Structures are given as C-alpha cells and as structure tokens.
C-alpha cells in the first residue's frame, strides 16, 4: 500500500455553545467532531456520509484547513499542515481545493466566469498560464462548458453549469485533492448524473483524489472508493465501498441503508427487459 495522500488523525473540533457560560462560568462547548481519523490514498475517493449534525461537513472543513482544529492533525503527503501559517496555507491551497454545495452562493455574482476561475491564481500572485482568456477556455472545456461563455456571469448559467464553474475554479490551481462538500446535493437528478460523471472522468484522467461529503447514499455508491459513516461526530464504520454497502457492520449503517427509498427491484428488472438493454453496467439484467 502506498502512503496516504491525505491523513487526518484524532481530529477534534469544539464550538462554544451560544448563550451558555455566565461571567464566572466556563462556556459549554459542543464537540462537533469527536476523534475522527481517516486516510485517503492518491486517486481514491473517500466518501464521508452521515445525516445532518453528524459532523461530516465540519470534518471536511478541518481537512481543507477552512477551519482550525481543536486538536488532532491533518497531514498532506506526510507533512503536518495543521498549524500552517498564512503564507504556507497558500501553498496548501494549491494542493487542496473545495467545491461547495450551492454554486450560486459560492460564486461571486458580479464576476465573469473568467475572473472567477482565474481568481485562485491571482490571489496567489501566480501567473495565469497562457493568459486568462485561453486558460479559462481550456478549463471550461475540461468541465464540459462552452468556452465561448467565459465572459458571462453565474446567473446566466443553470445550476448544473454553475457547479461546473465551481469545479473549474477548484481545478485552476491543479490541486491533487478536491474536497466536495455536498457538491451534487442541490442539483436535479438529471444534472446530478452529469456532474457525477464529470467528477469521475476528471479523476480517471487526472488522478484526482476526492474527499466527498454527502448525505445521499445512492450518490455515494456511484462515486466512492471507500466509505466512512459518521454520526454524532464520530466515524462508526469505514471500509471499501462494496463492503460497507454490501455487508454493513455497524447498526447505524444498516439503519441508514434501510431508510433509503428504493424503486422495487422487480420493476427495475422489468423496465430493463422492456427497454431491451442492460441497465448501466449491471450484471443481472434478465427479467
């Protein structure tokens, strides 16, 4: 086994609880992330799944150094990045980028696509390779957007296209790790499928490593290499995707999997038979 690219060890994040603690009392602290450890190898996708309040998004923010840990360490390629200063953090941001859930609130509405996707380079004082226009065009092509639209504004795009802009911006600095925080959750199912396919293609072609935060287990099944199930700030089960989905060990994982609404398998088989083709790359396509 190769060394993990990203490693989190005993991560803890506490937040003060509002309104508690008087003048002389110590404030009550809420432990959102409670001793979380994981590793991601290069080219893999680790999915952190859980319900609201499980601590999955906070964990992602700690790993991306958008939040400071209370205790624990984050290592990138063996280097402890937990305590990086401002200047060193810039270097870290070249390696680890984030794609957020709501593309419209995470893209500046007053900036053109070109300005948005070149911003990460500009902030870092780095030259834009080949000039902003050409650079933007090539990025837009990579994420499946029409490069002729580089001077348009976010509001002129649909939700799925806007999320592609968010992905393009993340890719601008050629990161090795992309943290996807519910990156496809807000999208319509048809658009969601396109963006999942895009993320998979980019991983295959460029060897990207993903930390994929999601509450939707069906989406996770489509993209994860490994899955970690979180609840109440802790990882209760972690393993290869098919192991976790096929033979969940923890009671909470089973409860979560059982709760997912499903189209009846016999209807699915019947539909595939009626359509006269195997569905997806499924094996059992007979009616």
């Amino acid at each position, binding site marked *: 086994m190769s060394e993990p690219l990203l490693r989190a060890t005993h991560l803890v994040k506490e937040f003060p609880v509002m309104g508690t603690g008087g003048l002389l009392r110590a404030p009550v602290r809420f432990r959102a992330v409670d001793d979380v450890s994981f590793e991601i190898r290069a080219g893999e996708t680790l999915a952190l799944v859980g*319900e*609201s309040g499980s601590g999955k998004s906070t964990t992602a923010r700690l790993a991306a150094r958008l939040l400071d840990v209370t205790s624990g360490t984050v290592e990138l390629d063996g280097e402890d990045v937990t305590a990086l200063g401002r200047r060193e953090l810039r270097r870290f941001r070249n390696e680890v980028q984030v794609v957020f859930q709501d593309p419209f609130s995470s893209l500046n509405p007053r900036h053109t696509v070109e300005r948005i996707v070149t911003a990460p380079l500009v902030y870092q004082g780095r030259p834009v390779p080949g000039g902003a226009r050409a650079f933007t065009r090539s990025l837009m092509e990579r994420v499946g957007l029409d490069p002729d639209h580089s001077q348009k504004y976010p509001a002129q795009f649909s939700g799925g296209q806007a999320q592609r802009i968010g992905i393009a911006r993340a890719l601008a600095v050629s990161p090795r790790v992309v943290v996807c925080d519910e990156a496809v959750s807000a999208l319509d*199912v048809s658009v969601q499928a396109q963006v999942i396919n895009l993320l998979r293609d980019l991983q295959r072609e460029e060897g990207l490593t993903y930390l994929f935060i999601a509450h939707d287990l069906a989406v996770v099944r489509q993209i994860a290499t490994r899955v970690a199930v979180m609840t109440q700030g802790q990882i209760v089960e972690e393993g290869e995707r098919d192991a976790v989905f096929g033979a969940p060990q923890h009671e909470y994982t089973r409860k979560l999997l059982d709760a997912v609404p499903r189209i009846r398998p016999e209807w699915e088989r019947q539909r595939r038979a009626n359509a006269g083709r195997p569905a997806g790359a499924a094996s059992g396509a007979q009616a």
Partner: protein
Amino acid sequence: MTTETPSEALLQVRDLTVTFATPRGPLDAVRSLDLDLEPGGALGIVGESGSGKSMTSLAIMGLQPRAARRTGSVRLRGQELVGMSEAELRRVRGDRVAMVFQDPLSSLNPYYTVGLQIEEAYRAHRPGVTRREAHKVAIAALERVHIRDAAVRVNHYPHQFSGGMRQRVMIAMALSTEPELLIADEPTTALDVTVQAQILDLLQEIRHETGTGLVLITHDLAVVSEITDHIVVMKDGVCVERGAVEQIFTSPQHPYTQALLDAVPRIDDEIGELRAVAPSATPTNGGPA
C-alpha cells in the same frame, strides 16, 4: 353546492393552466394539466425544478401568486373550486383539503406553542368549538402522528422540536380537521433519510386508516414509487406522461421519463456511467398526455 354523485372522483383537474405575464409575453408555468384522484388514492406528481409541479399544488388550492392567472377546472368531489370566492375557498382549505410543505420551520409561528397553532387552525374551521375541546383535539392530533408525551409536547414551541418532529406537527395540524385530501409538497425533502422513512411510513399509515386522499409532489422518483399508486410526470409545465405507478416504472413511454429513470443513482446497483438526461433534448407535448 352539494356533491352530485357520491362515487365521483375526489379530485378532478381539467385543463389547468397557470400563466404569468412577462416582458417577453405570457409564460405558462402549468399548461393544460389534467389530474384525477379517486377517494383514498395517492397521486404522485414528479418533476425537476421548473417543471411546474409546485405551482400545480398551489393552483389546485387557488394559492398561485397574485401575478398569475389560473384557468381550467378543479373539482373536489364534483364541486368546482375555480371561480369560488375567497371566503368559500378558505372554508375548503385546511378543512376539506390540507397542505403540508417542505419546510416545517417556516410554516410554523415561532412565538406560539404548537398546541395553540393546531387549536387555532382547528377552531378556524369549527366555529362552535371551545378552547378546551380544541386542546383535546390538538393532543389527539399529536398522538395520531406518534409524538410521545403529546399532553406535554403540545405546550412546546416549534424550536423545541427536531426537523422530523416539526413535520409531524405539520401533518398533525393538517389532519386535525380530518380532510378528504392531503396535498404534500416535497414533505420529506429537507429531512434526513432515516426521518424521511418515518414520515413516509406515517403518510402511508394515515392513508390506509383514514382514507384521506394524497397528492404527493416530489422530485424523488424512489419516494413516489414507494407510496403512490398513480404518477404524473411533469416537465416545463406540461404532463409528459401519466399512468399507474407500476406501468411508469416498468414501461415508461416518454423519452423524458425514461431518461429521468436512467439518471437516478441506485443504491443497490452496480455502477456504470450514469445516463445523464441530455439538456433540452426532450420534446414536450402541447396538450395533455
């Protein structure tokens, strides 16, 4: 004003059209939509954002935005709702037809206990009822949706309930007047998956026990497949396909329905390339499908 024949449809919508005037001319958010629901039945309206499914649920009750024009016919057990006065409509809403929305927190008043809100909703439709009687109804309503210690919880405020519990409160409120029809617009979309499963079970149970008809509006195909018996698939304000649930899921006829079904990520399925719906490559029918 009375119902003509006892065996008629609970809900019959014909040629429902909701039109907005825009600078570029009239825009139909819903166009020529027909819906049919038998008493005790469950109809799913499925579509993606912009399909007109939520506007449909509002327009059924005459709750479309003021800027919109609604035409067509909406009959509740034969009684025409289009053209009814606001006062008459108010008697139908909440009494014979109740609605549950996606976000229970924004539908509840944070300053009043849930009990008081259920009581007020109930008394608005039952003028002669005393406070004490309404309080009993509120407790019974909370028990009905399996909220434990209902007699205590009835005096709690919305923020003292979790998201799933708040949605139970909304359903309790909706059911307190024993409506004939419940319209639920994305009732579980904001909820965690384990809570969603509980709420869907609850809706099923209520249907089977009280015979309340259900119109469920959702983007989630798996959800409609589990709890409805007929489905209408909407796209761009138009019904592109309708049928019994099994028929839609086993032999979808319209390319859009097929594409939508192909795009749903499967939790039990081996993965291949997800079949994305080609953008704007889906023809829509002019008239009712």
